[in-house]
């Protein structure tokens, strides 16, 4: 029997192979591998499961995925860096378009649409953060923060970096990984009752060796850092750059960090139209003022708008390409490569749909729903919500210390109510004891929140 031709490999057809081998002037395909010595050639066959036809594959994979329970089936209060938000259908339509899905690295001519869409993303996000320069997206918030910090170190030519202790521990790991061995890190304490930065600690640790301070606002723990202006003033005195990580969906109602003195603003685009995808929806952004010393330190691609020889026509190109590692290899600014462009385009679509009012409405809805949750939680005996007294956005700490139960136990019990409870903080922040980080957004209805309240009440009173 002749070999089966695979639908993905047209040139398996023997007659065609024959023709091609003739053109090349060899007898068999394996002859072309003569350059690989026998001892390097893999002997035998790979031990892989047998191939499946398309229908079998679909049935097989779908059966595996059926083992998952998703956040449509259970109500979820998980956040902590990946959040459930409303995603307009138009976002999915655009990012599922075959053209955008399969585009790679074409030129400004045949990929004009890709360039324009990414330029527009940069421009739209620029309005949200109120900054003039935005990059083509990086991997995620952690990496964006790490790069922002390295940029600051290059700009200031200093090696020391201060991090707020409330920075997401996972991001801290990424930051310090990307920072070592070149940079040194030191942490700034927070106030236990509010989460706010301990300014005294900051003052002590500030010096003219410090390149930058990095903090997040709204913070990983949900509270809003309201001392931005004061912090900026302190930093300025020592020539230290202020880098702020931000959840962009807060910026319809919260002041963007540029308004209280941030030099570099970074964050994650996932809330702006990306499905959670078990964390496959993350994408980082970095924004700065349009100053040459900042722009030159970006490792990322930056698309700029330029004229063409046709009057009135827009074209796009790479701004200051020569700074990148594509051009300069190890002499370039860090490294650049495939990152998360499609999520940039999607975030652009999201912002274009939402407009100024939409972004303000969504911020408001998140605030209101999450405040409602806290208010109702406070009525449950033994639970303190929120633990911090300061205003918060979207996330907040629920304190279970008085219940004599662990967060782990409570979350296990919540599963029976078809609820994913908030993230257990007891490992990352042992000083808080049994606390959990809950997330409430615009997609939570009153019924969803009431169900949480009722379930927790039952669990704790049992």
């Amino acid at each position, binding site marked *: 029997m002749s070999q089966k031709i*695979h639908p*993905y490999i*047209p040139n398996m057809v023997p007659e065609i192979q024959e023709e*091609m081998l003739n053109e*090349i002037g060899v007898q068999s*395909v394996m002859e*072309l591998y003569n350059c690989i010595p026998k001892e390097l050639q*893999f002997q035998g066959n790979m031990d*892989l499961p047998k*191939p499946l036809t*398309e229908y079998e594959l679909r049935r*097989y994979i*779908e059966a595996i995925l059926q083992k998952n329970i*998703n*956040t449509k089936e259970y109500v979820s209060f998980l956040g902590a*860096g990946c959040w*459930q938000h409303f995603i307009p259908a*138009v976002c999915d339509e655009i990012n599922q378009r*075959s053209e955008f899905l*399969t585009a*790679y*690295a074409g030129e400004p001519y*045949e*990929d*004009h*649409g890709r360039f324009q869409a*990414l330029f527009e993303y940069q*421009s*739209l996000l620029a309005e949200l953060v109120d900054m003039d320069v935005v990059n083509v997206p990086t*991997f995620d918030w952690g*990496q964006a923060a790490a790069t922002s910090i390295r940029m600051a170190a290059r700009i200031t030519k200093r090696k020391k970096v201060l991090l707020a202790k409330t920075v997401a521990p996972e991001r801290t790991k*990424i930051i310090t*990984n990307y920072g*070592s061995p070149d940079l040194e890190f030191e942490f700034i304490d927070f106030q236990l009752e509010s989460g706010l930065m301990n300014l005294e600690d900051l003052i002590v640790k500030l010096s003219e060796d410090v390149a930058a301070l990095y903090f997040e606002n709204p913070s990983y723990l949900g509270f809003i850092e309201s001392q931005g202006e004061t912090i900026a003033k302190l930093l300025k005195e020592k020539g230290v750059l202020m880098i702020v990580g931000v959840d962009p969906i807060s910026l319809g*109602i*919260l*002041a963007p960090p540029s308004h209280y003195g941030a030099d570099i603003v970074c964050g994650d685009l996932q809330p702006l139209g990306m*499905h959670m995808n*078990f*964390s*496959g929806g*993350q994408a980082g952004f970095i924004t700065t003022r349009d100053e040459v010393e900042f722009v030159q330190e970006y490792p990322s691609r930056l698309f*700029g*708008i330029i*004229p063409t020889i046709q009057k009135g026509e827009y074209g796009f190109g790479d701004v200051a390409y020569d700074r990148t590692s594509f*051009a300069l*290899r*190890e002499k370039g600014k860090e490294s650049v490569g495939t*990152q*998360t462009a*499609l999520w940039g385009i999607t975030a652009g679509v999201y912002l*274009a*749909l939402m407009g100024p*009012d*939409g972004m*303000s409405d969504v911020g408001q809805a998140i605030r*209101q729903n999450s405040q409602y949750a806290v208010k109702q939680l406070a009525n449950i005996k033994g639970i303190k919500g929120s633990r911090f007294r300061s*205003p918060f956005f979207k996330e907040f700490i629920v304190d279970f210390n008085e219940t004599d139960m662990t967060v782990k136990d409570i979350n296990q019990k919540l599963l029976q109510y078809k609820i994913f409870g908030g993230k257990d903080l007891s490992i990352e922040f042992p000083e808080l004891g049994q606390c959990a980080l809950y997330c409430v957004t615009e*997609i939570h*209805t009153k019924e969803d929140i009431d169900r949480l309240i009722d379930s927790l009440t039952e669990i704790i009173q049992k």
Partner: protein
Amino acid sequence: WNEPIIFELHQKGEKGVEVPPVDEEITQLVGDGISDLPLEMKRKSKAALPEIGQARVLRHYLRLSQETLGSDFNVEIGQGTCTMKYIPKINEFLVRDPKLTELHPLQDESTVQGILEIFYKLDLCMREISGMDCFTFQPSGGTQALYTMASIVRKYHEVRGEGDQRDEIITTIFSHPSQAATAAVKGYKIITLHPDEDGFPDIEKLKAVVSERTAGFVVANPEDTGIFNGKINEFTKVVHDVGGLCYYDQANANGLLGITRAKEAGFDMCFFNLHKTFAAPHMCGGPATGALGVIEDLKEFLPTAIVDYKDDKYYLNDELPHSIGKIRAFHGVAQTVLRAYAWIRALGADGLKEVAKTAVLNNNYMYSKVRKIKGASAPYIKGSRLEQVRYSWEGLTKDTGVTTEDIQRRMTDFGLHYWTSHHPYIVKQPFTLEPTESYSKQDLDEYISALEQISKEAYENPMIVKEAPQQSTIHQLDEQDFLDHPEKWCITWRAYQKKVIHKQKSMSK
């Protein structure tokens, strides 16, 4: 289409989409959610985003999509080193399953057994394909995988007390620039080897530079030239002998699946770009996955957590004593992990080997044909080629003045991609083609005949090529210094307003 910039579509009052409303009882109970914010943290005026009806936003982006040449639409073989293969549509439908899209990464393990199973099973396949012993899918692109490997090299030497002593990483000039760049970010001094006159990496040069300062050696094989280094195991031995680690850039392993593996070549680590070798889409530049495999000894250095299997359950294993920590948030790009697994399952062991063989056949067919085109050549003629070739138009440029950049623009008129090369242009007037296994002979002939025609034009009527594109979406860019001069570059629409529009207005006064 001559689509305006999205801000130009603004019409005050129009609405693209509505936010889910807040229950009135909630508003009554907690107020408007804004008044009680700290004054200094309230946004003073709304973001200056455009206001556009839903249909118009959709039309705008749909038109832009049509102005983008995805690999689904053309004979995508002109982006050598980055060429896309066929991206099976079935996989795209699978990743849109809400059982994947709506999963939160911190859900209880019992509720994500399905996706963990996919991660684990892909790991098993990758082990077999590479000979490595454990994989992580956290790195979300080739550069990040390379960076992760550099981090492991550092950690490895630190744990052995040689962290400071070993400060050099060796690579080659025809490897991807990210290899050097990422190692440099990790604080290493980079030593770059140039090839011998036949285009092969030069083992004598390697021997000359290794020492007790050598932390690692990173290389692609075949390199961008498409030439395979048959002595690679001697190279890795030289490095191992001085105590260095060897890691392998297999971003593109199209020509090698089932033929030769990282293990037999003596590597300690390797990575595959799932969007190159394993047919995941590139999505305009990510998100992606650089699947990173290590030998058993290095497993404890991997970023946490890896997916493991015990007592009939999949779980996230973060007990890796010397882990380098985290390289990316949570678990990586789960969709692409699923895509790669689905692709492997569609092909099986024999199918993967056919992929490699056909990719090599296709490439050698083109290699034979392209060299016959007037003005084209392939340097380093003695090295035979596997899955791609870096060619040169040096002859054509000398004869006609037409450069590889001119040809690049002209290829656009044929609806085809064409890529020159990474810097530095060691090969003069370079272009790099990689046909993969996905294209039929008829497809390849179409591409070749476009090159032939352009060569003909260059010799007969070079202005057609020099003034290209003739019929693309837009005309030739007027670059001047709009991209490189700080006073002129415009990275956002608001910058354009300030630098260009405002200036025009003030000049016209």
